[in-house]
């Protein structure tokens, strides 16, 4: 009887301890974010998706995703930012971060801070580069994710 009780208490304590454990890994439900982005995609067809982990650092940092496109196709880019805790600016360029003469095609800079889903439509490019500009933040800021989904028609 007592053994059972002690076992039960140990189990509860263990579960509580695990629950309070902190981690640098963001908790992002990829499936749920993709389902939400897909609803915004219509009438475009799903092409691909990329989840990017956003960890805040004491210095400004950048994460870049290369997106191959095809001439003459129409594309919709959907970015879901609901899991990030500090605003990240999304910029789309025609060339990568190393290129000197790259052109900014779109930015989320002017979108309202409360907006959690950003949409950009584009055509006439072979490839674009999505840059996530992560602001300098106290590194204890909770990490998150940005879900990017691409659709075409």
């Amino acid at each position, binding site marked *: 009887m*007592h*053994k059972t009780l*002690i076992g039960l*208490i*140990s189990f509860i*304590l*263990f579960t509580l*301890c*695990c629950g*309070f*454990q*902190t*981690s*640098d890994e963001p908790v992002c439900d*990829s*499936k749920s974010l*993709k389902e939400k982005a*897909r609803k915004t995609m219509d009438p475009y*067809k*799903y*092409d*691909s*998706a*990329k*989840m*990017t982990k956003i960890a805040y*650092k*004491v*210095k*400004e*940092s*950048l*994460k*870049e*995703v*290369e*997106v*191959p496109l*095809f*001439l*003459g*196709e129409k594309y919709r880019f959907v970015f879901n930012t609901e899991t990030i805790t500090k605003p990240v600016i999304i910029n789309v360029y025609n*060339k*990568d*971060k190393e*290129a000197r003469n790259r052109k900014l095609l779109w930015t989320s800079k002017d979108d309202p801070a409360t907006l959690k889903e950003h949409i950009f439509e584009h055509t006439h490019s*072979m*490839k674009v*580069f999505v840059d996530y500009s992560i602001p300098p933040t106290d*590194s*204890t800021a909770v990490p998150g994710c940005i879900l*990017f989904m*691409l659709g*075409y028609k």
Partner: protein
Amino acid sequence: MYLNKVASHLNSLLAAVVCLSFFSCGSSSSTDQETTSQAKDTSANSKTVVQKEEPTTFTLPSPLQIASIFKKAGLSYFPNICNQPENASKYSSGKISQALNLGIYSADLSYCALNKQGQDSKNYMKASRDLASQLGLEKVFETDNLANRFEKNLSNEDSLGGIIAEMQMQTDMILEEHEQEYISATVFAGAWIESMYIGGKVYEKGKEKNVAMRLVEQMAIAGNIVKALKASEKKDAGITAVIGNITSICDVYKDFAEIKALANTPDDIDYNKIQISKEELTKLTAKIDEIRASIVKG
């Protein structure tokens, strides 16, 4: 006696709690240490803090989009170009062979569906499902009744396209969930090779200039396939051979006169204007035929 037993159990419990507390705090304390150390470095001399640049990541397009691009370029339907659906049973061993051939069948399915070939689409759907099941992807076809919806819409090219895109999304999600993105990249490699093969075969028959242009344009993503596969080369010994195959196709392309001339500015290539000779295209399609044959033989 009884009290002694209880005391002994309580001691064990206390010890367990102490251990658990230590364990649970260990992780956060190590994080705190890292944070503090990082903060100290920054305040001591902010100029010496170098933010290590992370490499650019990338996405790969879907096989359906590639089929759709070729279709818009005038790719007409020719029966018997695709891999025979009955061959699916040959690919019973080796994940990489199964993934490559699942990609091949995905491209065949898209080619048939976009060309309103109902019965062939059904056959390729079955072949894809058989191989997908062997890779643990059976759930894809059960989600939202996708397999049944597919069969009910065989004569509707738009609906079939939507259902195939939905399957692609479900496949990506399952593979991501099980940390098997390398399977995703390998499936895409197979689909890309088959799309190039079909494009090459149709070009041989009709000499459609737009199809030729699209074949060359597709080479722009070959580098990304290689990068995606290299990122997971350690996951399966078979990936190295796939990388070798795609690289050998790239080597043929890099040897084209106009591509050589633009080697230093590959991002500035205008695929609408580029001139590729018939001999060069023949070399490219011959290399693709050779590699595709080695995959489908199982």
